[in-house]
């Protein structure tokens, strides 16, 4: 088993790229290199009024890995993802990102740092076409000011085309070329999920958060989605943190798993370790809490 805790500050970052420290990285069975820790949650506690949604949870996410967060309904998984993406601010605890403590920031600032996500209930822009939705994913990369845009010709148009090329690559990758100009509101559920993934990928994120990417899908769609997730991780080297209910899928996809129950962390490790953890088994089979 590799070491999950005790991360020292011996890593250097240049821009967004981590200068890999060979001591921290390892190679998986299928030959992918998992890098050092890119994000670490330290003793996070989140309360809504009197309800504690997350109780003192710590875990980390390594570069290039697929990290799953699982747990029964109401365990606080989505809240955890919302903490990572800056939508909720935890009352206690620290979020470390790329070797530095992340100050409290707004969700859009988090996105600008290279964290993209999808949503449990699809949150696409229904009034726009698929292409426009994917292009919104590029917004953090588009920098021309409002005055260049009023002229259009020149910088604005050049930037638009450059970013369109990236967006089209993602569209090709996820095999949604045919529906590029279709309004999103006309798409079936499974395709919407895929478009949402495309929008997140278009941001070329360092860390991709997927909130139940396979909820409500049939077996075939689940297989497709699993393949896309693996491909994304493999081809772009994107670090992925995902929440999922389907245990089979989680065990097949992820490198490491965090198990939550009633806002507490009850397990953390490889799928194999987690599967044999007594507390996890209890939580899933239902042992009374007292």
């Amino acid at each position, binding site marked *: 088993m590799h070491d999950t805790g005790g991360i020292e500050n011996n890593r250097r970052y240049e821009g967004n790229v981590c200068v890999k420290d060979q001591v921290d990285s390892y190679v998986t069975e299928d030959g992918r290199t998992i890098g050092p820790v890119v994000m670490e949650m330290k003793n996070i506690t989140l309360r809504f009024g009197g309800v504690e949604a997350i109780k003192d949870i710590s875990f980390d996410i390594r570069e290039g890995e697929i990290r799953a967060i699982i747990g029964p309904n109401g365990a606080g998984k989505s809240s955890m993802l919302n903490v990572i993406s800056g*939508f909720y601010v935890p009352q206690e605890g620290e979020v470390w990102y790329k070797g530095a403590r992340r100050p409290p920031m707004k969700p859009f600032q988090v996105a600008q740092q290279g964290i993209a996500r999808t*949503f*449990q*209930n699809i*949150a696409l822009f229904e009034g726009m076409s698929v292409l426009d939705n994917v292009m919104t994913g590029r917004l953090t990369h588009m920098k021309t000011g409002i005055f260049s845009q009023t002229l259009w010709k020149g910088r604005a148009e050049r930037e638009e085309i450059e970013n369109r090329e990236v967006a089209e690559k993602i569209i090709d990758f996820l095999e949604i070329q045919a529906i590029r100009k279709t309004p999103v509101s006309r798409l079936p559920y499974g395709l919407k999920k895929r478009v949402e993934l495309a929008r997140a990928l278009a941001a070329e994120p360092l860390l991709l958060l997927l909130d139940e990417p396979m909820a409500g899908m049939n077996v075939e769609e689940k297989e497709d989605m699993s393949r896309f997730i693996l491909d994304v991780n493999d081809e772009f080297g994107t670090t992925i943190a995902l929440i999922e209910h389907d245990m089979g899928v989680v065990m097949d996809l992820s490198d490491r798993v965090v198990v939550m129950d009633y806002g507490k962390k009850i397990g953390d490790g490889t799928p194999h370790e987690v599967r044999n953890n007594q507390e996890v088994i209890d939580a899933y089979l239902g042992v009374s809490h007292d």
Partner: protein
Amino acid sequence: MPEQLAYTIEVFLNGLMAGVLYALVALGFVLIYKASGIFNYAQGVMALFAAMTLVGIQNGQVPFAHLINAIFGTDVHKFGWSVHSFVAIALTVVVMIGLAWAVQRFVFRHLVGQEAIILFMATIGLAYLLEGVADLMWGSELKALDVCAAEGVCLPQGLNSWIDETTFETFGYGFFIDNLDIVASIVAAILVVGLVMFAQYTKQGRAMRAVADDHQAALSVGVSLNFIWILVWSLAGFVALVAGIMWGAKSGVQFSLSLIALKALPVLMLGGFTSIPGAIVGGLIIGVGEKLFEFLIGAPFLGGATENWFAYMLALLFLVFRPQGLFGERIIERV
């Protein structure tokens, strides 16, 4: 008692009375909003429409007389009878119920499930439509409205001499308070109590609250949404009629009557769209606030007529710090 203080108290009391009338209009908004999520901009025009209909029926006017005359070249104006106030009020209530049915049947039934802002814009369209219909039906000239139970027993006008004399004897300064405002306050209080009782203790009231909570859940236990919505619009129409009578008796029935709806909007923003007590407290705050502001700051320092915008500015500032209003439900955002 120093004179300035006495003036201020008088202004305060008058503001309170005006606030009651604002609250009355705001009440109509809250009823419809709670049950259907529609923010009914047309509430003010409904008050105008109700008041015009009442006057028209009282005076025995022929509906659409001008239009009929224009099209057929005839010269009809009046039936030549006048109707007793109570009968006229009853007939107007029937008209308002008919209006409620028509609005539900022809407009909002087709807009179920639309975004709130679309519904809001539809009610602006409805306001224009109703205003046009009211003008075509009864003519757009200024009309006097007087509701009388019997010969000589009418809605009171002018200042209340009893209050004037009593306060003069005690404080050395007679307070000027309108009789009509006092009646309006009493009527408003009765109306509010009645509505709350209706909502709490009757079967229809319970169904209404169920619909307000959750449309689908209400449907699944056998509440007819259509019926409830017509009921709510009828109630709002009734409240509009009461507001129309009070305002109409005060300053005549004319187009500006519908502008009280605009005043009710900041009342709602203060009180929250979903709260009946909020509408009342909000109305009182706005009524008192704008009168006092005009008296103490507006007229002496800003050239007067601050009543035009004070309510909105107050509501705007208030909203920035407490977006859900005084009594509104707290908004928690989720993803």
